[in-house]
């Protein structure tokens, strides 16, 4: 018995410290999370004054929050509030660096600080999606997205790096499980979820509805019953079924459908995508590698296409000597003299 326990602990220690688990998944997750924040900021940018401006109709965040975390509420202070555009610009630049995995850990910390400051200023626009991704952003600080295993010369440093990265990664998965567990169990006791009318009432509230959806749900009651029960069943079963690798793809496919519906039908656009982005933490490393490589393949195709076009232009018949002289030289080629 003692040997068996020791063996399990030994195995656990090895998993945690020997290698970075799911390196490609980590890299893909990082890119997607930061892309989500980038898209979110770009969507809000045309009305930036309404969200972060000095005259925005948003009450100042609770004094207790400011007192406990002054560093995260800088835009609530008169000294910083006129410079909200600088925070937005810094966030956009840092997010691009974050997506490109430049100085990953330092950039992750900076992204977190800038984003939290912007979000605390416009605190009334935050939803569960923001909440989840704020937490994931902290875990991303620990994750190593460089794809290089044991990149330090010092073995201890490698062990620390691997442990931090693996802990961060598994915490993201567990956090999503927690979201569904709390939400699912909460719904089980709700009367409207039990009698299958929850979807009907939600889609009859203007803020979470669409005229077409409103009509459909009234004309076809089975949509409400099926949708309400499927949502509860999905959320309650997710924490257990997601660990089964055979069921996982179907589960995540259904979840993605559910959250896309939340985005487009209920109008909680960025919330639906936030949860879908975190689903990528459950992706196998192999699939994540293929997705990341497919992007490289696309880049390669594009580069080859550009070079082919340029070389075609260069040798195109009928081009006079004078015209050839003004053509730009391809990098690495010597220009004709």
């Amino acid at each position, binding site marked *: 018995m003692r040997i068996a326990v020791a063996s399990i602990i030994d195995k*656990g*220690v090895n998993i*945690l*410290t020997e290698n970075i688990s799911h390196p490609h998944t980590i890299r893909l997750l990082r890119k997607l999370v930061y892309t989500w924040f980038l898209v979110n900021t770009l*969507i*809000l940018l*045309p*009305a930036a004054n*309404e*969200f972060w401006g000095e005259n*925005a*109709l*948003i*009450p100042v965040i609770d004094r207790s929050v400011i007192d*406990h*975390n002054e560093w995260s509420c800088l835009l609530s202070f008169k000294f910083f509030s006129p410079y909200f555009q600088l925070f937005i610009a810094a966030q956009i630049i840092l997010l691009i660096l974050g997506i490109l995995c430049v100085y990953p850990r330092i950039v992750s910390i900076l992204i977190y600080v800038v984003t939290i400051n912007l979000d605390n200023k*416009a605190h*009334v*626009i935050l*939803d*569960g999606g923001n*909440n989840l991704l704020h*937490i994931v952003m902290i875990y991303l600080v620990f994750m190593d997205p460089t794809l290089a295993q044991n990149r330090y010369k010092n073995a201890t440093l490698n062990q620390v790096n691997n442990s*931090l990265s693996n*802990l961060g990664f*598994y*915490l993201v998965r*567990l*956090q999503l499980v*927690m*979201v569904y567990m*709390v*939400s*699912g169990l*909460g*719904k089980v*006791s*709700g*009367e*409207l*979820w039990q009698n299958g*009318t*929850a*979807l*009907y*009432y*939600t889609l009859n*509230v*203007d*803020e*979470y509805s669409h*005229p077409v959806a409103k009509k459909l749900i*009234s004309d076809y*009651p089975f949509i*409400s019953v099926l949708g309400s029960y499927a949502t509860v069943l999905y959320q309650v079963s997710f924490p257990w079924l997601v660990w089964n690798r055979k069921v996982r793809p179907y589960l995540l496919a259904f979840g993605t459908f559910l959250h896309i519906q939340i*985005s487009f039908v209920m*109008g*909680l*656009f*960025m919330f639906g995508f936030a949860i879908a982005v975190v689903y990528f933490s459950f992706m196998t490393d192999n699939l994540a590698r293929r997705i990341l490589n497919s992007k490289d393949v696309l880049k390669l195709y594009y580069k080859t296409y550009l070079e082919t076009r340029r070389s075609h232009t260069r040798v195109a018949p009928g081009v006079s000597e004078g015209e050839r002289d003004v053509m730009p030289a391809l990098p690495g080629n010597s220009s004709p003299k």
Partner: protein
Amino acid sequence: MIALFASIIFFHHIVCTILYNAPINPLTNSYQSYVTNYIDPLFAQRWLLFAPEPAINDLKLWYRIKNNNHWETWLDPLQPILVKHQKRRFTYNAKLLYVYGNIARDLNIKNLLITSEFPCAGTDKICLERVSDSLLASPEFTLAKKYVKQDIAKYFPHKRVDSLQIMIIQLYPKQFSERHSNKPFGYAHSVEFKPISF
């Protein structure tokens, strides 16, 4: 040693997250203070997401203006944004609904708070006046007034406005059994505030 240390941190974090999200139970008091102090600064979370019940009513702020001694019809300043949001989902209008919707929500909460602080009998005019005055002086009402004035300046820039009145209205959808009836909504609950000069 490193793995052991990392495992302890991991385990501690998971246990605290579970306890933070757990419903109130007989042991809550014994761990709540520690867990809250650990989770709240960076990992604060709330995952009800339409549980135990989904949203079942619209809380709106409406206003009307008085022009030449005549009160005009009630207006919903959020309606144009809502229409735009329903037409195209991926715009900032989704979040503008949160900003302006929050003004109505905060004002409603303040109103409930003040009326519970000063429980007046229906005929006690002095008491009712005191409730009304303290609400009109609140930052929530000031913000609502600012919002309405901005809306008037945007949509009726050349209109002469003598006074304005704000109302909070809660619209409940038709009951499921009445879904095919011609009623526009199930029922409404409204609170009209004292008119103020423009």
